[in-house]
């Protein structure tokens, strides 16, 4: 390819449209061509502006707090980990907390085609980072579990059921104090379901939240299904927890202006709304539902309700299941 050809490929590059061979050649050229680098920078800025074209939506109010909480968790875990783990000398990222926070920055700012080229070449198309992503310190640093490259994060749940060693590591990262045996008991209880849950979890941060709810003693479960047919709904909740993990399979999205609503029912009492949920086009759902701490129900049910939910069920439940405490 001549220089003119490379210049023509800049839009393809920033849109991640180059095939692996083209990408390799392009990035090799990029390292030596100021004109193409300048073009790449300009097209990246254009991509940033293009993001303005989507209708603006305000993020949920609690999202910022959730972000900051995760950062603090990770910083604390990193600080803790740095005291025992091997190979953390290069992991002193921008934690800002812990013993490394005052140390000099240890990551050399990458050149234009440095780590970017390496990561893009090494990863398959569907997992590679965008060519427009600037720094790649995650490729050059040794990182604890929570900082694993994002395209591997969905694999955390299968790891949990695969070995207690990994389970113990995850427990450490999410700050649980469960003993190893308790973890083993917990993983056994939800092993079959977790394999399906794993397919729904796509990043470590979310997996941590789910795991916190799932990996605990006294886990209560309810499986809701129609007799002998799809769809099905699985509920998990700790004995004294304020969360319910909901997984759904083969449940088509509710119709226009409708939503699914989950109910908790005890004998002699009106159903209690546990919240609404929706499913994806493929019929799956994975939700973390907040409930009153310690609240227990004999039965749960799902109804089809108007968007926003109803104070009491307005339709017949189409999924019903009984809560049970799984034997350890």
């Amino acid at each position, binding site marked *: 390819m001549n220089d003119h050809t490379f210049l023509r490929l800049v839009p393809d590059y920033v849109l991640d449209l180059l095939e692996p061979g083209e990408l390799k050649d392009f990035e090799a050229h990029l390292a030596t061509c100021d004109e193409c680098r300048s073009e790449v920078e300009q097209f990246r800025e254009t*991509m*940033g502006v293009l993001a303005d074209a989507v*209708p*603006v939506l305000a993020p949920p109010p609690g999202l910022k707090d959730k972000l900051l909480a995760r950062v603090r968790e990770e910083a604390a875990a990193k600080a803790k980990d740095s005291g025992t783990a091997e190979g953390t000398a290069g992991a002193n990222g921008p934690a800002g907390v812990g013993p490394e926070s005052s140390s000099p920055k240890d990551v050399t700012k990458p050149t234009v085609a440095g780590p970017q080229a390496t990561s893009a070449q090494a990863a398959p198309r569907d997992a590679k980072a965008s060519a427009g992503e600037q720094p790649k310190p995650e490729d050059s640093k040794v990182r604890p579990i929570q900082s694993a490259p994002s395209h591997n994060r969905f694999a955390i749940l299968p790891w949990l059921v695969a070995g207690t060693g990994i389970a113990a590591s995850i427990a450490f990262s999410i700050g649980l104090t469960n003993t190893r045996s308790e973890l083993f008991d917990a993983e056994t209880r939800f092993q079959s379901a977790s394999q399906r849950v794993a397919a729904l979890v796509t990043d470590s941060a*979310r997996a941590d939240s789910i795991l916190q709810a799932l990996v605990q003693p006294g886990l209560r479960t309810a499986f809701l299904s129609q007799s002998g047919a799809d769809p099905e709904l699985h509920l998990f909740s700790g004995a004294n927890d304020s969360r319910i993990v909901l997984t759904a399979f083969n449940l088509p999205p509710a119709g226009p202006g409708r939503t699914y609503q989950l109910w908790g029912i005890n004998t002699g009492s009106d159903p209690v709304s546990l919240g609404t949920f929706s499913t994806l*086009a493929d019929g799956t759902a994975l939700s973390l539902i907040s409930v009153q701490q310690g609240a227990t129900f004999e039965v749960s049910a799902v109804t089809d309700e108007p968007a926003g939910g109803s104070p009491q069920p307005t339709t017949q439940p189409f999924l019903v299941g009984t809560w049970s405490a799984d034997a350890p």
Partner: protein
Amino acid sequence: MTEPTPDTRPSDNLLVEQMADGDRALAELYERYGALAYSLARAIVGNDADAEEVVLDTFLKVWRDADGFDPDRGSVKAWVATIARSRALDRVRSRKRHTSALRRSAATTDTGLAVSLSTQPDAEKNLDRTLAREQLGTWLGHLPKEQKEALELAYFRGYSHSEIAAELGAPLGTVKTRIRTALGSLRDRVQPQLGGGGS
């Protein structure tokens, strides 16, 4: 590295530099670009829950990688948008790998992603956007329909050239030309507004 700005607020670049000093800088950066990342993610993944996770992922990556950010290679805004887009597309692809439903119809409308690129005049205006959305809308409006469609499929769906060609029923070479021309046209209009020299 960081030039003083007329604005009394710290510059984006300074915030990235200060990322190691605690979470104040990250919080401020989120205030500036959280909505951008969320809106973009929502347009790509098609649901609130995944969009939230994409935003968390995006800013966690910004926080982790702040040391490696080089302002000479682009703006913080472009960096955030690029990460958000990449993470959102990863999420969609991950879903596709795990399910048999390859189409996320919920993320689109009957007219496809054209809606995503049709800027809405009543959108929030409290963001410190470099360009007026109306102006961007005008520019996008000037793109031929077939160019805009191809660009939308590449940008919002992360489709490959061949996937776009199949989707649009157009020859591969034509699709490549449409995308390059569309993004090039936008670049030519955007760059002068950003103070760049253009090509």
